C-alpha cells in the first residue's frame, strides 16, 4: 500500500501525466525568460494563446479519435474543405451571411465528411489510419478540383466580424497588447468536450472501445454507432477549427492547414493520450498544444531556422510515444511483481 504522501503526489501527477507536462511547460518558460527577458510578457502570452486557438480545436477532434483507439490524419483536409467551401458557397449566393449561417454550413460539411470516415471505419471495420489517409486525399482533391483553388481575401460577414475582435487589452512596454476574442469560444469548447468525454455515456463509450472493443460490445455498447458518431463529432470539430483558421488569417486559402497533422497529433500524444487507445484528457491535450506552441515560439525567438521546428516537434512526438510504451511495460511488470507477492503470501 502506498502512503498518503505518495498518493497525493501521484494525484498531482495526474492520471495521464498532466502534472508532469505542466511542470515541463513551466520549466521551459523559466528557461526562455532567462535567455530572453522579453519572453515573459503579456505580448508573448497573448501571441501563444492566439496561435493555440486553431491547433486546440483540431486537437480536441484528434483526441476523441485517439481515445477510441483510432488515428485521424484527414482532419486538416476536413477543416479547410469545410471552411473554404463555406466561403465559396456564401459568396456565390450573393448574401453576406452572418456567423450562424457560416457555422451551420461549415459544421454540416464537417459532419458529412466525418460521416464518410466513420461509415467506412465502422461498417467495413477498416484500419483508421488507412481510411483517413485515403479520405484526406479525396477531400483535398475534390476541394481543389470542384470547389476552387483560388485564394479568397473577402470573407463573409460572419467571419469578418471576429477577425480582429479582442476581449482583453493590457499595456505592455508602452504599447497596448490584446488577447484575441476567439480564445473565449475555444475555452468553452474545451469545457464542453471535457464534459462530453467524462460525464456522458457517449464519452465513456469512446474510452471503452479504445480500451477493448470486444469488451465494449459485451458490455452492451453499440460499437458501430459509437464509431460513426465519434467521427462525425471529430469532423464537426475539424470544421470549426477550419472556420477559426480562416477567420484569424482573414483569408481563405485551400492549401492552408494541410501538413499540420504532425503538430496536432504530437500535441495530443504529448498530452498523455495513448496511441493504443483508452487514455487521454482535454487538460492534457491543451497542455500539449501549449507546449508545442511555446517551443515553436521559443525557437523563433532564439533565431533558429524554421526547419528545426519540424524536427523538434517530430522529436517530441517520438519521445511522447516512447514514454508511453515504456511506462506501459513498467505497469505490466508491477502487476507481475504484485502477483508474485500474493502467491508467496
Amino acid at each position: 500500500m502506498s502512503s498518503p504522501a505518495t498518493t497525493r503526489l501521484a494525484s498531482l501527477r495526474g492520471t495521464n501525466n498532466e502534472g508532469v507536462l505542466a511542470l515541463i511547460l513551466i520549466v521551459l518558460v523559466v528557461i526562455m525568460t532567462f535567455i530572453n527577458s522579453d519572453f515573459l510578457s503579456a505580448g508573448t502570452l497573448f501571441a501563444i494563446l492566439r496561435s493555440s486557438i486553431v491547433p486546440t480545436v483540431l486537437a480536441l477532434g484528434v483526441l476523441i479519435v485517439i481515445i477510441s483507439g483510432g488515428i485521424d490524419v484527414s482532419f486538416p483536409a476536413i477543416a479547410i474543405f469545410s471552411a473554404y467551401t463555406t466561403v465559396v458557397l456564401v459568396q456565390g449566393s450573393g448574401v453576406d451571411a452572418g456567423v450562424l449561417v457560416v457555422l451551420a454550413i461549415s459544421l454540416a460539411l464537417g459532419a458529412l465528411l466525418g460521416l464518410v470516415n466513420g461509415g467506412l471505419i465502422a461498417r467495413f471495420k477498416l484500419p483508421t489510419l488507412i481510411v483517413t489517409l485515403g479520405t484526406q486525399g479525396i477531400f483535398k482533391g475534390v476541394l481543389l478540383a470542384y470547389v476552387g483553388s483560388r485564394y479568397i481575401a473577402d470573407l463573409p460577414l460572419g467571419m469578418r466580424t471576429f477577425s480582429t475582435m479582442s476581449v482583453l487589452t493590457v499595456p505592455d512596454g508602452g504599447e497596448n497588447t490584446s488577447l484575441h476574442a476567439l480564445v473565449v469560444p475555444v475555452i468553452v469548447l474545451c469545457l464542453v468536450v471535457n464534459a462530453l468525454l467524462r460525464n456522458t455515456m457517449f464519452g465513456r463509450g469512446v474510452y471503452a472501445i479504445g480500451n477493448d472493443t470486444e469488451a465494449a460490445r459485451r458490455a452492451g455498447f453499440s460499437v458501430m454507432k459509437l464509431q460513426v458518431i465519434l467521427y462525425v463529432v471529430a469532423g464537426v470539430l475539424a470544421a470549426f477549427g477550419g472556420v477559426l483558421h480562416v477567420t484569424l488569417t482573414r483569408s481563405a486559402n485551400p492549401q492552408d492547414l494541410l501538413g499540420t497533422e504532425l503538430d496536432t497529433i504530437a500535441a495530443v500524444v504529448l498530452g498523455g493520450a495513448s496511441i493504443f487507445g483508452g487514455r487521454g484528457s482535454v487538460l492534457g491535450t491543451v497542455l500539449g498544444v501549449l507546449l508545442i506552441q511555446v517551443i515553436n515560439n521559443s525557437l523563433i525567438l532564439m533565431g533558429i531556422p524554421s526547419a528545426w521546428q519540424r524536427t523538434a516537434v517530430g522529436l517530441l512526438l517520438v519521445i511522447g510515444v516512447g514514454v508511453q510504451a515504456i511506462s506501459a511495460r513498467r505497469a505490466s511488470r508491477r502487476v507481475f511483481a504484485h502477483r508474485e507477492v500474493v502467491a508467496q503470501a
Partner: protein
Amino acid sequence: MSLEDPSATETGVPVLEARNIVKTYGGVAALHGVSLTLTAGHVHALAGENGCGKSTLIKIISGAERPDSGEIVVNGVAHSHMTPKDAIQQGIQVIYQDFSLFPNLTVAENIVLTSAVAQKRKLFSRKQSRPAAQRIVDDLGLSLDLDQEVERLSVADKQLTAICRALINDARVIIMDEPTTALTHSEVQRLFALVGRLRARGVALVFVSHKLEEALQVAQDVTILRNGELIISGPATDFDRRSISRYMTGRDVDESRLVNAPRYDRDPVLQVTDLTLPGAFEKVSFDLHAGEILGVTGLLGSGRSEIAEALFGVLRAESGTTIVDGKATSIRGIRDAIDAGIGYVPEDRLTQGLFLDKSIADNVIASSLERHRRRGLLDSRKVAATITDQFNRLRIKAPNVEAPVRSLSGGNAQRVVLAKWLANGPKILMLNGPTVGVDVGSKEEILAILRAQAAAGMGIIVISDDVPELVAVCNRILVVKQGRISATLTGDHITPEAIQEGMAA
C-alpha cells in the same frame, strides 16, 4: 430489486431455461437440441471437451449469438433469441475468461458502466458511480481499491471486479467461463467462499470448467455436452471424477500410471550440478536419462519455472555446471540451449510459444529452420515432409496445415507447440504446465505423445503442479521448495499424497 434483500429471488426455482437450442455454423452443427435449466441458488457445472458447444451455448444465452431454433425462457417469458442488452436487462451476466474489463478505467467505473449502458443512460457521473460500487464491494465483504485502474490489479482482483460488475446489474444468472484457471489455490478457495454468498442471495451460477474436482466441489447440478449434444444432466451427487471424464470423452479416460523404462545403464543426457540463481533457486543438481520423464513440481513461486528457464537460456544462472550428452555446456542464451539440443514449451503457450495469426505449418517449422536448409536456402520438400509428419503424428484437429493457430482449441494449440519443438529433434524437451487449460481427452493424448517421445529416446522434463498428471507419466519427481530441491520421489513413492506432502511441507 434490492441487493440487500437475499429473498429477492427465491432459491430452488428455475430462473432460466434454454430449450432445444440448435445452432449451425456454415452447415456444421455446433449444438443440436441442447437444453439447460438453471436454478436459483445453485451452481451448475457445464462440462465438456473443447469444441463440444459449451461456448456456443453461453454465447446464445448471453445474446452474443442467435440460435437457429429453440427458445430461452427467462422468468417464465420465452424469447426466440437474446441480444447483449436484453440479457443484461434480464439479469444474465457472463464473466468471460478475459473478464472483458476496461483496463484503463477505475474499478468503480468498471463496476458501474455496464448497468449504465443497460439503463440507456445518456449521462455518466463519477461521483454517483462510486457509492454504488462501494455498496456492492462492502456487501460482498471484499477489499478492492475502487480508484485503482483495473490494469494494475492482480488476476484475482480483476475477477472480483467482474463479479461486482455482474451484481450491480442485479444479476440473477452469472455464467463464469473457466473461473479458476488463472487463480492460485488460495484465491480459488476465496472465490468459492464468495460463490457460497452469491448462492445465498439466490443467484444461479454456471461454472464452465475443465477442472473436474473443482466443478464437483462447488456445483449442485452438472450438465455435460459432447459434440454439440446433451449427454447427461443431473445433480452433482450422481457424478464423480471418473464418470464425468467418461461422459465428456465417450470412453474411459486412463489416468493410471504408465511409465517407460529409462536407459539408466547409459550416461545421462543432462547433468546439472549446483545450478544457482540467487533469489530464484540454489544448488539445484539432478540427472536426466534418455527415455526418462522427470517431473519438477512445487508451489507457484517456488522456483520450478525459473530452473527450466535457466536451462533454456531465458534466465542466466550465476553458477553451476550443465553437462549435455557428456559435454560441458554453458547456456548463456536461448540460441545456446537450442544448439545443445534443448527444447522448451513455455507455460503460457498462447502468448509465448506461437505466432497466433500464422498457419499451423509456419508455426511447426518456426524454430527448426536451420535443420531444413540446403545451400543457404530452405529446402521446401523437407519442410513439407516435416510439417505433414508432425501434423499427422500429433493428430492436430484442423481442416489443413494452412489453418491459423488462433482458430484452434487449447489442446490443439498445445499440440502445435509440441510439434514445433519436435520438428527440431531435441534430445531434451522441457514442458512447463503442458496441459494447463486442456480438457481431459486431449490431456491424455498429450501425455501419450510424451511417453512415445520418451520411448524413442528423448529426455523429458515436465514442470507442473497437476498431481494426477505427474503421477501418470513421471519416472522421477523433484519437489522444489523455496528454490531448493526438497525431495526426490522415485518408483512406488510417486503417489498423489507424497507429492502434495512434499509441496506443502
